[in-house]
């Protein structure tokens, strides 16, 4: 059994090859959905599970490196597996297992040609993400990084006959490419004088302060563009809805995290030092992004766009955590640095779980109703009980309520904020309350958004008649959803074990493990600082809630009769109640739109009193698009037209150019 003797790293490489092989196999019989659905995607899911296991197994091991016989002559591919990579591999494997399982059902049921190619691109996407996580030299990293972007681009443009989808894909790939060039330059800086491209060399290279900061900013730009950090976020709400749902899940749940991985890798591992204002910048951008994202999520009417904006919000929170970790690390407060770091990683994996879950459930809804517009959904809990139940878990988790996983990471992060005062830098101390407020506000608003999301889709009356035909998700899809839902619950209930695992990841970077500090009370409570300082016991909590509910229920049942009769809902004396009278998505988002008016660019169309068929529309748009992107495009056109004047077609003018060039150069020689 070679698999047993193989080192974890070899297993990971094996899985990469395995996935590529599956993808190519997809081209064998591209027109046979069941061949893809029943065989290939489940195999891919199995690969994901193995990957997750490897991640768990090797997360605490010392790092291992290998050199592959590929690559540039002086620069063969280096791969390396350490705690950080292992953790993100776990994230990738775990999430992709669920998603592939779901995809098995999704791609098999939706009849469309060209799924074979999609299968190839899908597994190529998975493989390239894995390579990103284990790459140990700049070249391999960039290759994997860009192939990841490429594969996801092709997946996004699966329905390339729709112009919107084409433009979305174009925008996505453009921003991804520009970001990639930024990362490339960042590596170019970090090579220093030695001119080596391996990460090992970069770790050892000593950079002057200035170039270090340049590298960090380039990295923040490059990885921010991929993660959807303001102001490079515009591609996200376009690309995520365009893609097929499993792909959106993969992109939002996993691909964004690879950007976070890169940021952490560069900041904490490759750069020899950190500076406090790096942290402040990350914190500021992160929180602005978070607030922006949640505000826009609240006013969306397309369910996948809504989720995309919520992804922007979560990325913002994560980046803020990174910034906090940097700050603490600089003012060497290892305990809090570790706390912030762990909180960040924890939120990464949480987001991977619940965001994938929600995207997949939107996939099922889309698949059952052919409808993405919240304004035409509703009441699906009656047709699709499974999807409704499972996505309720995701909704609660992302809304950050205990005892689910979303709350744990928010709790940890708030603890980090809470104990941050006492930094030697007074300005930072002033900054903390404000940023805390921003974070908390974002978290609370996300609750609002999620109630809107779930309530409008699944609850209430059906806003369209044809929704009656909506059928529940198939077996494979259910399995995929359930897998992720279980993930959400488990991450919420057993944080102690997870944190112990994460300690292994953060230990090398911040030299502290919050798991085994004095007074961490056993496996039941998490007490990152000290039990009397702060503690949270989700399991106890869950038992408390369940206990209380059961007790109440039983008492009520025992004491009183259970009589019950059905009737129409109370109509306040207005008999013609119908589904159109419920809040639409716009209606539900309207208060937010009103409160945060200045942040939106709202185009209203109000009916005149004499309209025969009065119609009202208010479209909230992104100001940044008009402030930043449109001017850039205009400048580009202008520049192009100016330069176009060079070529007016007169051969004499052309001769004049070369004549002038010659003369000028000759003078230059003199």
């Amino acid at each position: 059994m070679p698999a047993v003797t193989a080192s974890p790293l070899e297993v990971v490489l094996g899985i990469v090859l395995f996935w590529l092989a599956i993808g190519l196999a997809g081209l064998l019989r591209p027109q046979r959905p069941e061949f893809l659905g029943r065989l290939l995607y489940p195999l891919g899911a199995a690969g994901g599970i193995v990957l997750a296991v490897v991640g768990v197994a090797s997360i605490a091991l010392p790092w291992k490196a290998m050199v592959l016989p590929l690559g540039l002559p002086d620069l063969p591919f280096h791969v390396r597996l350490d705690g950080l990579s292992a953790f993100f591999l776990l994230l990738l494997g775990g999430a992709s297992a669920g998603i592939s399982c779901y995809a098995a059902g999704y791609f098999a049921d939706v009849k469309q040609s060209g799924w074979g190619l999609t299968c190839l691109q899908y597994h190529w996407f998975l493989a390239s993400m894995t390579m990103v996580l284990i790459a140990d030299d700049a070249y391999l990293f960039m290759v994997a990084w860009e192939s990841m972007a490429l594969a996801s681009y092709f997946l996004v443009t699966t329905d390339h006959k729709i112009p919107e989808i084409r433009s979305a894909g174009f925008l996505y790939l453009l921003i991804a490419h520009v970001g990639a060039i930024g990362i490339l330059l960042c590596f170019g800086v970090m090579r220093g004088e030695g001119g080596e491209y391996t990460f090992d060399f970069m770790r050892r290279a000593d950079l002057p302060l200035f170039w270090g900061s340049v590298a960090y900013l380039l990295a923040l730009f490059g990885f921010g563009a991929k993660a959807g950090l303001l102001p490079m976020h515009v591609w996200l709400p376009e690309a995520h809805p365009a893609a097929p749902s499993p792909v959106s899940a993969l992109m939002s749940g996993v691909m964004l995290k690879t950007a976070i991985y890169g940021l952490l890798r560069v900041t904490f591992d490759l750069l020899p030092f950190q500076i406090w204002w790096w942290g402040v910048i990350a914190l500021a951008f992160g929180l602005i992004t978070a607030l922006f994202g949640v505000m826009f999520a609240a006013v969306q009417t397309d369910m996948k766009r809504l989720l995309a904006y919520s992804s922007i919000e979560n990325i913002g929170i994560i980046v803020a955590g990174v910034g906090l970790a940097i700050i603490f690390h600089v003012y060497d407060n290892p305990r809090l640095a570790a706390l912030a770091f762990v909180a960040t990683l924890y939120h990464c994996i949480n987001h991977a779980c619940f965001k994938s879950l929600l995207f997949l459930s939107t996939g099922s809804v889309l698949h059952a109703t052919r409808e993405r517009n919240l304004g035409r959904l509703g009441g699906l809990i009656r047709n699709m009980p499974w999807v409704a139940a499972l996505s309720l878990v995701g909704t609660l988790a992302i809304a950050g309520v205990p005892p689910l996983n979303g709350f744990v990471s928010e709790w940890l992060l708030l603890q980090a904020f809470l104990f941050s005062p006492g930094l030697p830098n007074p300005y930072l101390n002033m900054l903390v309350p404000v940023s805390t407020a921003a974070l908390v506000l974002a978290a609370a608003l996300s609750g609002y958004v999620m109630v809107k999301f779930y309530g409008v889709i699944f609850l209430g009356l059906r806003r369209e008649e044809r929704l009656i035909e909506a059928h529940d998700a198939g077996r494979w899809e259910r399995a995929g959803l359930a897998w992720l839902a279980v993930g959400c619950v488990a991450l919420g209930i057993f944080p102690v074990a997870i944190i112990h695992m994460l300690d292994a990841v953060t230990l090398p970077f911040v030299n502290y493990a919050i798991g085994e500090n004095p007074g961490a009370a056993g496996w039941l409570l998490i007490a990152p600082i000290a039990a009397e300082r702060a503690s949270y016991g989700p399991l106890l909590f869950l038992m408390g809630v369940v206990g209380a509910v059961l007790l109440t229920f039983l008492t009520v049942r025992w004491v009183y009769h259970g009589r019950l009769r059905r009737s129409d809902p109370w109509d306040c004396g207005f008999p013609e109640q119908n589904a159109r009278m419920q809040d639409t998505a716009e209606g539900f988002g309207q208060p937010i739109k009103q409160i945060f008016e200045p942040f939106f660019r709202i185009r209203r169309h109000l009916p005149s009193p004499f309209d025969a068929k009065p119609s009202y529309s208010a479209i909230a748009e992104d100001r940044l698009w008009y402030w930043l992107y449109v001017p850039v495009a205009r400048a580009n056109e202008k520049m192009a037209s100016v330069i176009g004047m060079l070529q007016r077609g007169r051969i004499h003018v052309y001769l004049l150019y070369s004549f002038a060039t010659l003369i000028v150069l000759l003078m230059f020689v003199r």
Partner: protein
Amino acid sequence: MAYLESFSYQLAQTLIVVVIAPLLLGWVNQCRAWLQNRSGAGVLQPYRVLAKLFQKDVVLAHGASPLFRFSPYLQFGCMVLVASIVPVIETNLLFAPAADVIALVGIFALARIFSALAAMDVGTAFGSLGARREMLVASLSEPALLMVFFTPLLIVQSSSLNTIVDTLAHREFALYPSLAFSAVAFTMVLLAENARIPIDNPATHLELTMIHEALILEYSGRHLALIEWATAVKLTVYCALGIALFAPWGMAQAGQWQLVPVAVMVLALKLALAGAGLALLETLSAKMRIFRAPEFLGMAFLLAVLGMLIYLLLGA
């Protein structure tokens, strides 16, 4: 042995809070009646209401999903849980370590989200209206509440309620201007969260203005009873929280059960005062338009942050 002891305390306190909750509600209404020169229905009225509601049949709307029926139990359960976390009589609560103040806010959020979802479930115009307004108010008051907690948290350098109350109650007296700010903010949040004037009027059924009542419009019978009771417990717990944070004197410390009777007395007194104060506030102020609510809560939020800043600036 010690576990059994503290377990009994835990149980006792939870029961006390849950049981006296309607009483507090009744007392507030009574005070309001007196302030409005009415002879009120008496402090026991809420108990009668609950009894009546438990007697009645449940009338369930067509197409109400299981979620709709499950929600009241969850809300009540959550409130019970809260009641068993907040120290009101003594601070050696067995269950307290399971959830600190942040988790406390989390519990409130859980209950609220379920109530909102349940309100949207039936699909009437009012249900979704109530849900929207409720979530709006909540999404602004929840951060305010957390910020309110943060000041004492910073003072005590702990987020576990036991520690906070212990330290605040049994240290030598000191003036904390920051705490004053938080206290004001807390009062405003309390009004908003418990659907009191000026945000909401628990007595009205005028659809256009109501928030909380719109939420529970479809409920009847035992479900309604549970919800009403949960509301009462929530109010009580809030008052208890306020007391614990800003006036914790006279609370029994871990293991001093000879002080418990005193503590009960003190608690009763404080609650009475709080109720009266609440009634006074409600009588003096008028309900504001729904879109003034954000300003009100934004003010609370601001005050809380100010308190925190002041603490960081003055260290007091």
